[in-house]
């Protein structure tokens, strides 16, 4: 269970990660703020509460692994890595620019802290399953986390990987689905419904839980239950809001892959600064 202090710290950091997302995509004049903001809380939770890491040794063999299968949400991951100490926070402004270590989608060979290069949807989860199997073969106690989008569930390879993970009893793997309900062409249920998600995951042999993805207490309970579960991989389906934290981006499919202009940038940063001040004052 999270202490009040831990929870406040996570809320503060999540605000900063969101500001990093807005900062990066504004300077890049491109990128994917919507899904980055819906996933900002869980990425913050993973990097500051859940995962066993050493930022001074990004390639530490016994570290927990994270695969951003929905690689387009790299801005949130980069912001978390920067605040966790993998590289300077100022570097977030170089996102997507020539010469930057922060590519449009994660590159494990360029950016400290990235465990797998991703970007083409459906593929990251297979690599996470491979890591989890490898850890078991090596007798390592580390855990592997893969974050997928709900639209990404439309990729057939995702289900190949789910079958593989359950068949091999990869209880060191946790698959997280960011169910923000929107993809590029519109609501997921209109484009190609992935629902019911939890039932599908259960049918594939995973221990699945559905939680509010913006509630740190709920996330904490779900990840604790996942850790306890033996003999099968776990899944956490997070109900989230696309664009969470920036009022004009919330629930808008149009903000999937669009950068804020100068005015929108200012409004977004003002809102997030106010949210940060409010959390800090608590």
């Amino acid at each position, binding site marked *: 269970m999270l202490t009040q202090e831990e929870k406040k710290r996570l809320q503060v950091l999540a605000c900063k990660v969101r500001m990093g997302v807005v900062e990066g995509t504004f300077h890049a004049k491109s990128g994917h703020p919507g899904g980055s903001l819906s996933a900002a809380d869980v990425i913050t939770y993973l990097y500051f509460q859940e995962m066993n890491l050493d930022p001074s040794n990004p390639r530490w063999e016994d570290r927990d692994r994270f695969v951003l299968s929905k690689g387009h949400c790299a801005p949130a991951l980069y912001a978390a890595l920067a605040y966790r100490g993998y590289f300077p926070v100022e570097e977030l402004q170089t996102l997507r620019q020539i010469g930057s270590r922060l590519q449009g989608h994660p590159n494990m060979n360029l950016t400290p802290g990235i465990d797998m290069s991703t970007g083409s949807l459906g593929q990251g989860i*297979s690599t996470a399953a491979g890591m989890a199997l490898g850890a078991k073969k090596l007798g390592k106690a580390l855990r592997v986390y893969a974050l997928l989008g709900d639209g990404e569930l439309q990729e057939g390879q995702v289900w190949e990987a789910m079958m593989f993970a359950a068949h091999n009893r990869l209880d060191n793997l946790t698959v997280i689905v960011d169910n923000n309900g929107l993809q590029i062409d519109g609501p997921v249920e209109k484009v190609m419904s992935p629902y019911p998600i939890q039932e599908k995951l259960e049918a594939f042999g995973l221990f699945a839980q559905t939680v509010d993805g913006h509630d740190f207490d709920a996330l904490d309970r779900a990840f604790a239950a996942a850790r306890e579960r033996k003999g099968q991989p776990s899944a956490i389906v997070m109900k989230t809001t696309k664009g969470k934290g920036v009022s004009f981006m919330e629930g808008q499919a149009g903000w999937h892959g669009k950068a804020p202009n100068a005015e929108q940038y200012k409004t977004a940063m003002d809102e997030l600064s106010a949210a940060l001040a409010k959390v800090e004052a608590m």
Partner: protein
Amino acid sequence: MADGKKIATRDSYGESIRDLAAEHEDILVLDADLAGATKTAVFQKAWPDRHIDCGIAEADMIGVGAGLSTMGFVPFCSSFAMFAAGRAFEQVRNTVGYPHLNVKICATHGGISVGEDGASHQCCEDFALMRTIPGMVVLSPADDVEARAAVRAAYEHVGPVYIRFGRAAVPVIHDPAAFSFAIGQAEVLREGRDVALVATGLMVAEALQAAEALAEKGISARVINVCTIKPLDRETILAAARDCGRIVTCEEHSVIGGLGEAVCSLLAETCPVPVRRVGVEDVFGHSGPAGDLLRQFGLSAEHVAQAAEKLVQETA
């Protein structure tokens, strides 16, 4: 071709990876429900805990291999060329090639000699697909001896490697005692000055036979075995172009995108000489016995000899 022995290079793969695994604990073999056909069943029997069957899911197999490689294993992902290079192309490109992971993609059943299964399984596009991936090594061994050496070399090379093996038994043309192998090194099997036959895979044995037939007609043909399709051995091929002035490429692959076009690109920019490409024309295959198909699709010693003779006459 000393004793006329014939072995399918897929058998060479299964046995050599089984044996190599005794020396290296980090080797794993992944399959997609084809262990019997890719011949990795012999590995599975010897090392059951190091064999991972991914089921009929080649895309996932490549991703799992990538993940395992980041944990320090050296996965050999096995399937038919059609599915390893074809179906899983984008997984190979994005999840193995782009991060330059140490994954070996071992594809059996390359080319038209798959035979009776027909066009759906006859992959004549794998060189083309794999060559375009930056940093990918592409190997196409000619016989049992070279296939075994290629497996060992692929293990020793740090980075992605694609190896194509065949289904059909092919003549053993190398003497294992006198053979040495290095990635990127082509092999001059026969000296000649009128034309160079630049061949890969099972077409190397055919090119050697063609050179015999050409010699009887007074044409001196050099025979070069190009096991490494990428990176291409520029020096050996350029020397052949300079010395012979004519090249015939020979491959069990589409004339589009394979060894023939790789050689043409090199020569066009560096040492333009007339080239003829013996390969599968821009068509799909069909069912039939492997030997009959190879002859029907123009992939025999006779066709190579004819192409070389015609080229010599045209450019006399």
